């Protein structure tokens, strides 16, 4: 725990930024001593790189840049990046479409949106098959409402 804290301090402030007790720890702890030595070497190398002068823009750099912008029309619509992005979108849209079609084909033909299957098709439908030979009982009919006048029927046997 202490080593981690001290190593962070070493990175941020270097050995000079440590308190006397932390410095004592660095001297006593082989891990922290190695860390301090390596980090100071790297930090110095990074400092030397920072001092290295960056290349200057060559003469007429901005003029050449503006000429290139003029040549390309500036709008960016004809740039390859545009085609790359557009192509990516077309591929994505096609994939979505194919996936939707496959999903529609794979799902069963039922549900609230779909209408009932037509019974007049060539093959007998399941509900027709189920009722064709089944006997019908009077009790299976709904009760007659009170307002319906039911007259007794008399049969005259001859």
């Amino acid at each position, binding site marked *: 725990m202490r080593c981690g804290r001290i190593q962070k301090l070493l990175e941020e402030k270097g050995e000079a930024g440590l308190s006397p007790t932390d410095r004592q720890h660095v001297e006593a702890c082989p891990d922290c001593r190695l*860390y301090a030595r390596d980090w*100071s070497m790297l930090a*110095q190398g990074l400092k030397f790189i*920072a001092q290295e002068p*960056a290349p200057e*823009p060559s003469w007429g750099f*901005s003029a050449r840049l*503006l000429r290139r912008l003029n040549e390309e029309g500036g709008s960016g619509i004809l740039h390859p990046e545009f085609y790359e992005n557009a192509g990516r979108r077309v591929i994505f849209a096609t994939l979505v479409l194919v996936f939707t079609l496959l999903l529609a084909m794979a799902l069963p033909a039922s549900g609230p949106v779909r209408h009932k299957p037509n019974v007049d098709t060539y093959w007998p439908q399941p509900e027709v098959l189920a009722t064709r030979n089944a006997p019908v009982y009077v009790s299976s009919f709904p009760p007659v409402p009170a307002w319906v006048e039911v007259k007794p029927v008399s049969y005259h046997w001859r």
Partner: protein
Amino acid sequence: MESNAQERLEAEWIRRAQQGDHEAFGLLVEQYQRRVFSTVFHLVHQQNEVEDLVQEIFIKTFRAIRSYNFRAPFGAWVARISVNHCYDYLRRKRSSRLNYYWQLSEDSRRMLEGGLEPQQRESPPSIEEQAVLKDLVKKLLDRAPAEDRMVLVLKEIENLSIEEISEVLNWSVSKVKVRLHRARKRMLADLKRCR
């Protein structure tokens, strides 16, 4: 007072560039080109490629300038485009640019093995030693993952503050701190592995 006038002038150039004015954009290029050259050079370490990369960055900047909304400073916005462009470039190049221990120079190897320890001595390192150390650190940077390299270069070489880095990389301050610590640790581990 003077900086306010400069900011107003810059805002005017940006507005004109947003309407497609190339000349106004040229003035912005003149203002920021040195900074972009420096960032790209330190990130990429390929002197012969810097100018082409900077040109591509400014073309990208011009194409995107309509989306600039004046919330962040224009310099930070351009720096973000530069860093992203270099990041893409490094990721493309990375596979073909791996450096291994046996590719280090004889002097770098000697330094790794502890022959030269710059902080342990009283006298400052000689020019040759500086060159060797620079070569070694550049090779370690080249081996580092692109994200580590970005954050290390911006902090240690470009001397940006944590807040500025978070603006450029579009990361939170805490994420920058964590990534920076991780990048330094990874680089030190790499150094040990080479030893």
